[in-house]
Each structure stands twice: as structure tokens, then as C-alpha cells.
């Protein structure tokens, strides 16, 4: 009984077509999609997210580099006004974490100490420039809200964050370097 059933099923299966013909010819569309140049801003969300991870790893390395370059001292974490409220996201899935905030707070605290040694004019100028950078960060974040997967914006945002760290390191480190030279 079972053998008879199996034989019938096998016979019916053998009669089935081995190819399924689509209702319309899809190849031209597929071919066009393959041959079309890939645009950076139209990456799939998965690719963009993968890129964001890579960028974040790169940013982390940059922060480490910035922190260690010039023998920057790692001070106790001192929350600095205006720094904690800023964060960003990549496709609403990624954010610069506590490690970044800690690194930034450390640099800001060190810079604040060094700024006290400078004239009010220079202090004001440094603050003005940091405000320019933070304004740019807010602007890029705002654009990212509309286009969360835009790789250009993600790249610019990370570079601008890095620029902020670089300025803080430069001001803190340079002043410290110059003043320490007084003890030659």
C-alpha cells in the first residue's frame, strides 16, 4: 500500500516542470540593478549600520590616539557643562557611548585647568571655537534625523567629534607643554 502511494507520488512529481517561468521578464531589471553604479548615500540599512560600527571602532581608536598623544594625562572624570547632553545616533541604532563621553570629559577637564592660565581673550576665543564645533555637531545630527543612514553625514559627524577632541587636546596639551618648558 505504501509502496503504491509512493510510486504514484513519484510519477506525479516527475511530471512537474523543473523551471518556473515568471509572469513577466525580470532579467532586464535585475541586470540594470547589477550594472548601475552604487551610490554611497543609498546603501542598504544593513551596510550602513555595518559601516557605522566600523566608523565607531575607528572613532574609538582615534579617541585613544588623541588621548594618548602628547602624553595627555587622564584625569578623574569631571562632568563638564554642555558636554553630557550631546549624543548622536547612527540610524537610531548606535550612539557614542559612555567611554566616549568619559574621554571627552577628561579632555575638557584638563583643558579647563590649562585655560585658567591663559588670558581672558584667548579663553574666549577657544570657547567660541568649541561653540562652532558643537554647533556643527548639532547641525549634522539634525540632518541625520532626516537621513539616518547617510554615510556622508555619519562620516562628517565622527570627524567633527574628533575635531572637538583634537581642539581640546591641542589647547590643553599645548599650554601644558609650553608652561612645563618653563621648568627646563
Amino acid at each position, binding site marked *: 500500500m505504501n509502496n503504491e502511494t509512493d510510486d504514484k507520488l513519484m510519477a506525479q512529481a516527475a511530471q512537474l516542470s523543473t523551471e518556473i517561468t515568471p509572469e513577466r521578464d525580470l532579467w532586464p531589471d535585475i541586470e540594470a540593478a547589477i550594472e548601475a*553604479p552604487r*551610490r*554611497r*548615500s*543609498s546603501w542598504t540599512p544593513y551596510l550602513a549600520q555595518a559601516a557605522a560600527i566600523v566608523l565607531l571602532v575607528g572613532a574609538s581608536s582615534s579617541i585613544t590616539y588623541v588621548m594618548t598623544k602628547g602624553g595627555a594625562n587622564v584625569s578623574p572624570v569631571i562632568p563638564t557643562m554642555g558636554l553630557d547632553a550631546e549624543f548622536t545616533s547612527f540610524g537610531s541604532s548606535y550612539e557614542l557611548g559612555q567611554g566616549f563621553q568619559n574621554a571627552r570629559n577628561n579632555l575638557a577637564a584638563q583643558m579647563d585647568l590649562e585655560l585658567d*592660565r*591663559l*588670558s581672558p*581673550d*584667548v579663553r574666549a*576665543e*577657544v570657547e*567660541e*571655537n568649541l561653540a*562652532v*564645533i558643537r554647533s*556643527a555637531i548639532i*547641525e*549634522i545630527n539634525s*540632518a541625520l534625523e*532626516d*537621513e539616518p543612514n*547617510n554615510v*556622508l*553625514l555619519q*562620516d*562628517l559627524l565622527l*570627524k*567633527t567629534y574628533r*575635531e572637538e577632541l*583634537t*581642539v581640546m587636546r*591641542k*589647547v590643553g596639551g*599645548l*599650554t601644558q*607643554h*609650553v*608652561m612645563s*618648558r*618653563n621648568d*627646563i
Partner: protein
Amino acid sequence: MEVRNSMKNVTLILLGILLASPALAEKIDQTQDADANGKVEVFNLSGDIEIVGWNRKQIQVTGTVGDDAEEFIFERSGKVTTIKVKVPDRMHGHKDVSSDLMIRIPKGSSIDVSTVSADISVEGVEGEQELQSVSGDIDTEAFSTDMDIGTVSGDVDVEGSGKDSEARLESVSGDVTAEGLSGIIKADTTNGDIEITQGDFDRARIDTVNGDVLYVAALRSAGKLDVDTVNGTVDITFVGDVSAHFDIETFNGHIRNCFGPEAERTSKYAPGWELSFTEGSGEGRVAIATLNGGLKLCKE
């Protein structure tokens, strides 16, 4: 008689005080022998520093040192000569430590100069240069050695001789101007403009947040040019032929190019433009990204 003696004593005391006063407020003019290719370290908190390379194996320092400076140090240890205006560790109230130094050094020397609020000017020094200031301008000449120049609120101005070097030029709020440099350059500002002209580069990296960028220079075969701005405009003119793959993108600015295909919108719904193409055989690479700045790309 007693009054006359008292007056005499007071006069002698005043004379003694005057004679015992440190000579720091006086002009300085000192010379020492030096290595032809040695290193010269200079520290001056504020004032001016002018350094000129000459053909003698000597270092000469002339100028004035501020009244409240603690000590003027000019000493040599092997190949290293240190020139320093030492200031008090704690400076309460107004202290005159501003010192103007004119320093002549062997032209093959390398220099390491640090200041807080002094301008730095260097001419004819062919060794490596490390020049750092917080609020001073820096003006120097480049030869075939590396230079690392940084200031926070001053301008950086470098004039090259056309020979290859590796130059790193940074200012936070000042402008960076480089003319006639070649080889490798990295220019970085936050709020200042960057101008690179008459150069010929293997590698040029330009970063600014709010500044404008002007690049009128050649890019060598297999050379790389990277430009990033947030709000600045970018004006690139390649001198001579360029062979590179171009990747240019703006989020909110126009692209005007004199060669290559027309730029395309990044999206029907976004204001950005992008341009990707290969010029020549494409050994090099040009990557430019801006958020709001417009971009012009030409060659001559």
C-alpha cells in the same frame, strides 16, 4: 651735619639698590659656538621670537628681556642649545615678562620653539621645525625637512622652496596659508581658512569645520587629496594634468566642475549632490566631503 650724613646714606643706599638690580631689563647680546646641525630649543612666554639661519657655527641672541623675568638662560649641552626666558612660577598681578628675542643660528639647525603669546618668525632655517604657540602668529619658510606647526588663535603662514617635505600645519581659529610646499601636507583649522598654492603633492589632507578651502596646486601620479569641511566652501584647481578617481559629495551644497561628468543629485528628496568619476588612468584619489559648503573643481 647729621642731616647731611643721613642724605649721604640714603643716596648710597639708593645707588646700591640700583647697582644690585638684575640686568634683565637690559638689552641682551650674547653669542656661543654651536653645532652646524644641532638642535636649538627656545622658550619665551610672551613677546616676539625671530629666528634667522646664517652660515656661522654660532648662535647669537640679541633683544630685550622683560623686567619681571626671573632669568635669561642661554646654554649648550652637546648638540642642543637652550634659549629660555624663565618666568616666576606664580605671577600675581601684572608682570612684565614680555621679551623680544632675535636669534641667529646655523642654518642647518633644527628648532623647537614654544610660546604662549609670542609671535614666531623663522627665516632660512633648513633643519626640522617644531613651532608651537597658543595665541601668536607663526611665519616660517619650508625647505626639505619636516615641520610641525600649531597655534590656537594665531595664523600660520609657510612659504616653501618647492622641495619635498612633510608639513603639518594647524590652527584653531587662525588661517593657514602654505605657498610653494611640496610632498606631504596636512592642514587643519576649526574656524580659519586654508589656502594651499603653488605646490606639488603626493598627499594632501585638509580639514576644517567652518573655514573655506583653496587648493591651487598639482597632485602627483598616485597622489591623494582629501578635503573635509562642515560649513566651508571648497575651491580646488589642479595645476597640470591630474590622474585620479574622484569621489565628491555635498549634503547641502552645489558642485561646479570644469572637467568630468556633471554632478548628480544624491536623492530626489535631498538637496545634496555627488560626483564620482575617473580622470586619466586614475592612479590617484581625490575625496571631498562637505555638509553645507559649495564646491568648485577645475584644472589649469
